[in-house]
């Protein structure tokens, strides 16, 4: 069994090595088999792992010790894997969605000369992502944590001729690094308190500790900083929109479905620690609310199809963290899953659109594509409905669960959340209508050349659309007579957390819950309708007309609230100035001058005292007599 489990991550690694070494020698068709092939096989293995887990009488988590790694002073952090529902779920998502996207990429990247390199990177990413979720201790998780960061760097800057893209990649890596420092500190704090890195030992010890203790809050906050960096929450979210520079499949896989959700996974994984730190939960709640709202607000005013989706991703991640903050861990994971499906679907759809438009990404230049790209349109529509949260699509169920929890946790938070849901619906439908409805506005690219993508791209779309449509039924709440399969599946993971949870849920009467659901659906539909009224029927010229009357808020939102600019002036520029200044003034003008100065002073001194050697006997005699007198004086008179 250990072999099979360990094969799950190492098959992609194997693929990476083959593709990486033989980068230029391997023909494309081989690569296009090898790349997805490794993923599908590890997907199958994950299913085996799942079945094995379920089969084993009373399901219990199993951990495998693969190899020793760091060992010092009796402590050790080895390559250990933990197989429990949480990791199995993540593995399935990663490999499943990963496989679909790989297949899609075969078509999408077909014309790129870096084809093999692309698949090598993608495989490497899958490897690290699996390491991240399968690790049985925080250090192994950190390996994956940093590794996926590296892969996202490599893939964002995939077309490295363009320095803009490279900057985006660099930005992503560095911002992640900032988070990672927090994460690392968290790990150290854990180690110093629990004398171990292993989840099991740590949580067992943690359970015994008093809730709300300072160290616990510190640990969780530090870990959360890591999550903020990885999952693009305020204040470290600005890298994600830029990350759209990468090829669209990358955005779908890394920056929507999997990597960015690592933070959510990590918090869920350490749920035991988090429930013991209510203060941290509060912080997470506030941060996520702010992120949700801000991102949604920005998304409404974006015109780049991928940017809209990027901001929507940020805001959806906010949903998940909100769920975590109110202790709805299952809800968070559920939304993570559904979001993985429909956001991947949306991105791939967008990719197909871009592919058809031959690189055009500005939705103002699109419109009326639904005739040209029917498959893309329908799948995209499914995705939109799903994310907007309309029944019976997956998004409805996951959002509903979160909303329910939020409502029971606090009315005010609920109201904001609903508002964000409405905004989500609005910008998604805006995107949909601007892209596929109205009449074609592309000026530099004739409508005649539009063409539906090849089936290697559209089939994945359909698969994802199907999943996005139905996977909500995995977890139908009791309210609707479902029995929450996923909830039961994940229950053992979160059992302790739920037991220890500090969040007090006020009991909500069923009728009220039904009311909320209906209300939300109604509001969403309303938004969709408004979006249709504003964007669905329009033609190009009209779009630009009401550019005049814009409130301040809108202007700010269009400029993304100048956050990037602020960071640039507050952090980037000062650092560069400092670097310059330190070198010019401190290094050369001060420290080095002291060093050289010592030498120069000695030489000057030498130049002075050598004139005592006047060359004149009289002077010599004089000095000698002085010396003699002094010596005799000090030794005899004194």
């Amino acid at each position, binding site marked *: 069994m250990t072999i099979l489990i360990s094969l799950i991550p190492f098959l992609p690694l194997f693929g990476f090595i083959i593709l990486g070494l033989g980068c230029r020698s391997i023909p494309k068709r081989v690569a296009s088999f090898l790349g997805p092939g490794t993923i599908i096989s590890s997907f199958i293995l994950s299913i085996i792992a799942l079945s094995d887990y379920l089969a084993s009488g009373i399901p219990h988590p199993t951990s495998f010790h693969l190899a020793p790694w760091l060992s*010092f*002073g009796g402590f050790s952090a080895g390559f250990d894997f933990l197989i429990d529902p949480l990791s199995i779920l993540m593995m399935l998502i990663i490999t499943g969605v990963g496989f679909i996207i790989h297949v899609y990429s075969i078509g999408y990247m077909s014309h790129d000369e870096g084809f093999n390199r692309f698949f090598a990177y993608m495989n490497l990413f899958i490897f690290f992502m699996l390491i991240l979720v399968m690790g049985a201790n925080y*250090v192994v998780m950190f*390996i994956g944590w940093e590794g996926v960061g590296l892969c996202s*760097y490599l893939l964002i800057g995939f077309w490295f001729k363009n320095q803009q893209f490279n900057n985006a990649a660099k930005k992503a*890596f560095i911002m992640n690094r900032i988070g990672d*420092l927090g994460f690392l*500190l968290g790990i150290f704090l854990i180690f110093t308190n629990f004398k171990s890195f292993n989840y099991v030992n740590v949580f067992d010890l943690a359970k015994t500790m008093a809730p709300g203790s300072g160290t616990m809050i510190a640990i969780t906050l530090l870990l959360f900083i890591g999550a903020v960096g990885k999952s693009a929450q305020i204040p470290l979210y600005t890298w994600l929109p830029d990350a759209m520079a990468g090829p669209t499949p990358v955005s779908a896989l890394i920056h929507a479905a999997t990597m960015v959700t690592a933070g959510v996974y990590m918090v869920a994984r350490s749920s035991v620690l988090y429930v013991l730190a209510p203060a941290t939960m509060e912080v997470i709640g506030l941060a996520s609310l702010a992120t949700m709202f801000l991102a949604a607000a920005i998304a409404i005013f974006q015109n780049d199809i991928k940017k809209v989706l990027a901001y929507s991703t940020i805001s959806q991640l906010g949903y998940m963290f909100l769920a975590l903050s109110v202790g709805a861990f299952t809800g968070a994971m559920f939304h993570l899953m559904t979001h993985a499906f429909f956001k991947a679907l949306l991105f791939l759809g967008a990719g197909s659109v871009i592919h058809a438009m031959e690189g055009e990404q500005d939705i103002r230049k699109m419109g009326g594509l639904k005739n040209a790209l029917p498959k893309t349109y329908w799948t995209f529509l499914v995705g939109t409905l799903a994310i907007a949260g309309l029944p019976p699509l997956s998004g409805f169920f996951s959002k509903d669960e979160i909303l329910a929890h939020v409502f029971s946790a606090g009315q005010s938070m609920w109201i904001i959340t609903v508002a964000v849901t409405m905004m989500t619906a609005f910008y998604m439908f805006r995107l949909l209508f601007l892209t596929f409805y109205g009449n074609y506005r592309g000026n530099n690219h004739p409508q005649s050349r539009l063409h539906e993508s090849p089936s290697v791209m559209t089939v994945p779309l359909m698969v994802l659309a199907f999943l996005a449509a139905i996977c909500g039924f995995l977890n139908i709440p009791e309210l609707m007579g479902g029995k929450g399969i996923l909830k039961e599946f994940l229950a053992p993971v979160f059992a302790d957390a739920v037991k220890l949870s500090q969040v007090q849920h006020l009991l909500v009467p069923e009728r009220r819950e039904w009311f909320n659901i209906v209300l939300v659906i109604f509001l969403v539909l309303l938004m969709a309708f408004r979006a249709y009224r504003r964007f669905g029927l329009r033609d190009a010229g009209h779009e630009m007309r009401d550019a005049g009357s814009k409130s301040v808020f809108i202007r700010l939102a269009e400029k993304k609230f100048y956050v990037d600019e602020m960071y640039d002036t507050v952090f980037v520029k000062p*650092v560069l100035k400092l670097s310059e200044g330190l070198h010019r003034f401190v290094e050369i003008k001060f420290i*080095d001058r002291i060093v050289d100065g010592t030498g120069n002073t000695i030489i000057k001194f030498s130049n002075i005292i050598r004139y005592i050697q006047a060359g004149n006997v009289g002077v010599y005699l004089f000095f000698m007599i002085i010396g003699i007198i002094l010596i005799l004086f000090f030794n005899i008179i004194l």
Partner: protein
Amino acid sequence: MLTLILIVLPLLVSISLFFVRNERWARNLALTTALVEFGISIAALVQYFLYCHCQLLFRFEWLANYGISLKFGMDGLSMLMTLLTTFLVSIIIFSSFTQKVARSSTFYSLIILMQAGLVGVFTAFDGMVFYIFWELTLIPAYFIAAYWGGENRIRITLKFFAYTFSGSLLMLVAIIFLYFRTPLPHSFDHIWLYANNLNPAEQVWIFLAFFIAFAIKVPVFPFHTWQPDTYVTAPYSGSMLLGGLMSKMGLFGMIRWMIPITYPVLNRTDGLFIIFPLVGIVYASLIAIRQDDLKRFVAYTSIAHLGLVAAGAMALNSQAMQGAMIQMVSHGINIVGLFIIIQYIEARTKTTSIRELGGIALKAPRLAVCFMIILLGSVALPLTNGFVGEFLILLGLFKYYWLYEADAGLTIIFSAVYMLRKYQRVMLGNTNTVTESFTDLSFKEMIPLVAILIMVLWIGIAPGMFMQLAENGVGQIIGIIR
């Protein structure tokens, strides 16, 4: 015995090399010597692990009535550093084959002499012998840098020599003073020196002397100003020797001599002296961000990285010190790798100015990959050698004082910033007139880099052996401190 051979063989070879006039022979003789040395050190390693960490001691009463004895041995620390030395010297000599060297027989004889000195420093168990070898390395280093160096090399190298030499003289006084504070009969043997009976005040002075001497060698901020110029002006082999090995002498000296002898000072001052390297980390990282010359850039990064190591060494707990040992090895490997890459780049483009470079990755994917992996090593990505050491050091510092760790941890961010910046400017983007005709690495050029990459990944993925060596060595030191 092996230890003695390790030291004597290169000495003899370097002397004989002076008289070899045929350049090709000189080159090959030098390389073979280096490889044989490497082989011997491997043999020593095997022996070390087979016979329960016996210290391979060699002892000869050199100046009996002055308490000086030629005592060499191999504990974990020495073994680790010796392996590093022999490995890197082979790499350095081999990588120097790609370019033409004037009076190469002298050149290689100096390098081999340097190796002898380094091995002596790392294996000496006698204070005075340690000092003698310590100075012995200075001569070849100086001559290599000053004879085969770049512009205004004379001034820079003289500064380098005078600066480091004054530091060492301080250490000499300290060692002699220490000698008379050892239990009777006085001896320079490290065990005697450890068992000194200094009073607190004397301890402080001894500590300062050692600290300054080692800090200049490493170099630790603010004693570092000789270093960037020297790295820039020295020939590549010289920069590699300086950055890869000579800087380690300082850190090794801290761990082997300074800390066991004067740790009470570190305890009493409560981490005051860790602040120097910590400041250096941030300071050098910040400066590195805006450096235009690749060699100067590497020089500053090495100040930052070694600052971290020095901090770890002085944190006085086993994790940090063990991490420091590992990180020394990793840094040696990485910096040599970086210098090799810069050497190749300059050989093709005749410039090390980042402003003029760019888009090399398009022309030379192999070089790009090697550069990227070594870069990852030095930004301490997990599964590369950089991570293992830095993780332990930071963990140890964290146990020492969390704020120090927070400061030192900034390297994680800064290293990413400057490394990626330079990588982007040099390798990525579109080619320009300078890099238009850039050719990818030849097989011969690949060999040293591949060897380095193997080490980078080996230490990163399976550090077990290295960690055990480090742990054995550090264990004794910590045992003394406790």
